[in-house]
């Protein structure tokens, strides 16, 4: 039923236009029913987009190749899960997913945002409507997923590297993150349009920002795991433009989540917060543009298309709109207070913000440089890993250290003598860890050693905070130590959930430093019975296996693994040859040691007819800490996101219209 899909999207476009135009008029003229009607248009646009999405999903599952999109991205031999994942495997479908998530988020934002004030919401609706109009226009007029053709017998199939379970979750999570950043941006713009620059827009969007940031973080980590397992080059992050495109809004949102706390606690940095929220949203649009326009060559960019100019136009409009609004409202964004001391919690947040933004901008420059050089000199000069790694170390290591320092310093100001006492334990732990690591030979990589010493400092300061806090709760009357611990977290979820997220970042740093600074790589050609040594592992080629599945021929080199005289079983690494599309994918062999966090990672470059195989072996210490970091990150985010009844009561009391204050 492509007609139903097309009609539903036209209805969605009409409703989004209504929300934009009528919503703006209603907010400007202060008409209540009209504003409510515009809000309903957003909800109805979600329903219409949902219907269109159902139509596309049904066509994908039913192999309806009369839909050009279905024919171009699937084939009958795919499993139902992969057929469904083709929804976001191509450009038209992924734009529809953008619109679906955007209208869904907008609907929820309208439903939950009503309590923070109808006057603010009245301005948020046309802003959201404007973004919806752009994406609805794209799927109606520029890249429709409902184009039809005479149905062929078979589809073109799915790109081999997309046939991986991670593809079922990684792109939707990234999109939930990208699109989620539209909500805080819309509330920020709504606050400026309505001249209501109090904290309501922050209160209304705090959890939205955190949720979008969490989705973006988890989505990137799943993408890293996909690259690690599927691409087969031995790494998980290659500073690819599309990977960078997801990292940049995450960094901007991280800076915002920290600086917004300064606004909440001290009434400072109002302009800076606006700029960060604008930056995060624009970077999320830029990320979608990079992935979908085909302007950069990337393993993640599956399309070459003509949507680029439309995206650039929209990014230009959104940038101009945001900046004009922020600068025209500068008098309303004046801070009420000043930074009292350079040694204070808010000052460390400020340093953290500067480092995060600097890192984000250097990455942005690295992404833009090839495009700029191509435009100016006619030759694209690529910016490689060394550039990014230099800035990651330059800004990332101080950021890591700040994560340990921040929690130890009081808000407003702290005396040096008090700091000395507070730093004693974490500093002692860090120095001891550094010395032990040096003795164990970690000095072969100075950045690695510094990263581990800083990590020990941060983990010690976090543990110290939890121990001191639990002890204080126990002294305040908690019935037991577990009760004291639980009460500590439940009474300040943001603070202690934040510490758990910090612990996740430390685990990530440990995993990245271990797997990159202390990695061992060996390669060579093996015939059956021959061996290759890598670190303390010995791999012996047992032989070559071949197996046919529904959609591919699988060829695997079988390698027996031994370490320190113990047999560890066998590993299989090789290639899949897909019949449809005649594509080949790398299928790596990984043996994880969950006790040490180390991976033995094997990939094959070539398997010859004489049963010889060219293998590359990586020993990656501590790499599993990266994936463990993901779980801890989710835990910390959930603790922070969990509704806090005390806070809800306080906010209700604040925003309920009450007796006016005393006046002259």
């Amino acid at each position, binding site marked *: 039923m492509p007609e139903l899909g097309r009609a539903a999207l036209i209805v969605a476009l009409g409703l989004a236009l209504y929300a934009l135009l009528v919503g703006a008029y209603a907010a400007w003229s202060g008409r209540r029913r009209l504003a409510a009607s515009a809000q309903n248009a957003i909800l109805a646009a979600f329903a219409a987009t949902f219907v269109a999405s159902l139509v596309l999903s049904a066509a994908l599952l039913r192999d309806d190749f009369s839909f050009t999109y279905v024919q171009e991205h699937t084939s009958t031999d795919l499993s139902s899960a992969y057929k469904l994942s083709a929804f976001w495997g191509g450009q038209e479908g992924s734009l529809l997913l953008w619109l679906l998530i955007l209208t869904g988020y907008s609907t929820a934002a309208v439903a939950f945002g009503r309590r923070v004030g109808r*006057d603010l919401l009245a301005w948020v609706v046309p802003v959201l409507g404007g973004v919806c109009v752009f994406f609805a226009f794209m799927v109606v007029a520029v890249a429709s997923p409902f184009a039809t053709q005479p149905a062929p017998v078979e589809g073109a199939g799915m790109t081999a590297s997309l046939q991986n379970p991670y593809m079922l979750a990684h792109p939707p999570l990234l999109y939930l993150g990208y699109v989620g950043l539209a909500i805080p941006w819309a509330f920020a713009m709504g606050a400026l349009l309505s001249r209501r620059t109090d904290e309501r827009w922050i209160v209304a969007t705090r959890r939205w920002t955190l949720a979008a940031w969490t989705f973006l973080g988890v989505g990137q980590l799943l993408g890293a795991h996909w690259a690690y397992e599927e691409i087969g080059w031995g790494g998980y992050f290659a500073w690819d433009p599309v990977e960078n495109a997801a990292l940049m809004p995450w960094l901007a949102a991280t800076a915002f989540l920290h600086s917004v706390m300064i606004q909440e606690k001290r009434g400072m940095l109002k302009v800076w917060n606006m700029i960060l929220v604008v930056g995060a949203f624009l970077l999320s649009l830029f990320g979608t543009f990079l992935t979908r326009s085909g302007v950069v060559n990337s393993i993640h960019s599956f399309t070459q298309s003509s949507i680029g100019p439309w995206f650039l136009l929209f990014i230009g409009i959104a940038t101009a709109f945001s900046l004009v609004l922020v600068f025209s409202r500068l008098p309303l964004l004046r801070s*009420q207070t000043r930074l009292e001391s350079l040694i204070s919690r808010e000052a460390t947040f400020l340093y953290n913000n500067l480092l995060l933004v600097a890192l984000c901008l250097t990455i942005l420059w690295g992404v833009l440089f090839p495009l700029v050089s191509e435009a100016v000199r006619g030759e694209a000069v690529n910016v490689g890993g060394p550039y990014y790694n230099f800035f990651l170390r330059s800004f990332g290591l101080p950021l890591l250290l700040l994560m340990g320092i921040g929690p*130890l310093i009081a*808000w407003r*100001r702290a005396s040096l003598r*008090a700091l000395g006492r507070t730093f004693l334990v974490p500093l002692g732990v860090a120095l001891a860890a550094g010395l032990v690591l040096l003795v164990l030979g970690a000095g072969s990589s100075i950045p690695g050693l510094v990263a581990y010493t800083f990590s020990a400092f941060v983990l010690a300061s976090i543990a110290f905070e939890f121990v001191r806090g639990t002890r*204080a709760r126990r002294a305040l009357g908690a019935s037991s130590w577990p009760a004291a611990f639980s009460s500590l977290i439940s009474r300040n979820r943001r603070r202690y959930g934040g510490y758990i997220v910090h612990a996740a970042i430390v685990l990530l740093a440990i995993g990245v430093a271990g797997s990159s600074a202390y990695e061992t790589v060996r390669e060579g050609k093996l015939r059956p019975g021959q061996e290759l040594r890598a670190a303390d592992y010995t791999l012996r080629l047992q032989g070559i296996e071949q197996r046919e599945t529904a959609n591919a021929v699988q060829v695997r080199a079988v390698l027996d693994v031994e370490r320190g005289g113990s047999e560890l079983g066998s590993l299989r690494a090789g290639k899949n040859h897909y019949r449809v599309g005649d594509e080949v994918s790398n299928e790596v062999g990984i043996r994880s040691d969950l006790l040490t966090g180390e991976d033995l990672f094997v990939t094959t470059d070539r398997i010859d007819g004489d049963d010889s195989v060219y293998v590359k072996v990586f020993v990656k210490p501590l790499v599993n800490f990266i994936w463990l970091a993901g779980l801890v990150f989710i835990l910390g985010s959930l603790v922070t996101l969990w509704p806090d009844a005390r806070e809800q009561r306080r906010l209700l009391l604040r925003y309920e219209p009450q007796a*006016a204050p*005393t006046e002259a």
Partner: protein
Amino acid sequence: MTLLALALAAVLAIACVVYVARPFLREPAPAEDRLDEPGELERRRLALAEERDRALAALKELEFDHRTGAVSDEDYRTLVGPLRREAAEALRALEPRAVGGPGRVHARR
């Protein structure tokens, strides 16, 4: 199939139009059709409420950090006074004016 699709599309469009028009259908002639925009006094009350909450939260956090040992006695003594004053001023400014009492000025911005 095309006819069914078009009929379903028409139903969807009509349902959306009715839903969008619902505020007007439910209240054809309301006594009041203005957005409840806060006046100057309500805006000031909100600003003061934010200030009160900010000061009280900071005070609570300071007390707890002092108890845990994260804030020294010396730093606590320096910080607690101004915070208590800020909280007290915001609370006082939010009190409804006593009947017959003197009006007080609490414009702190």
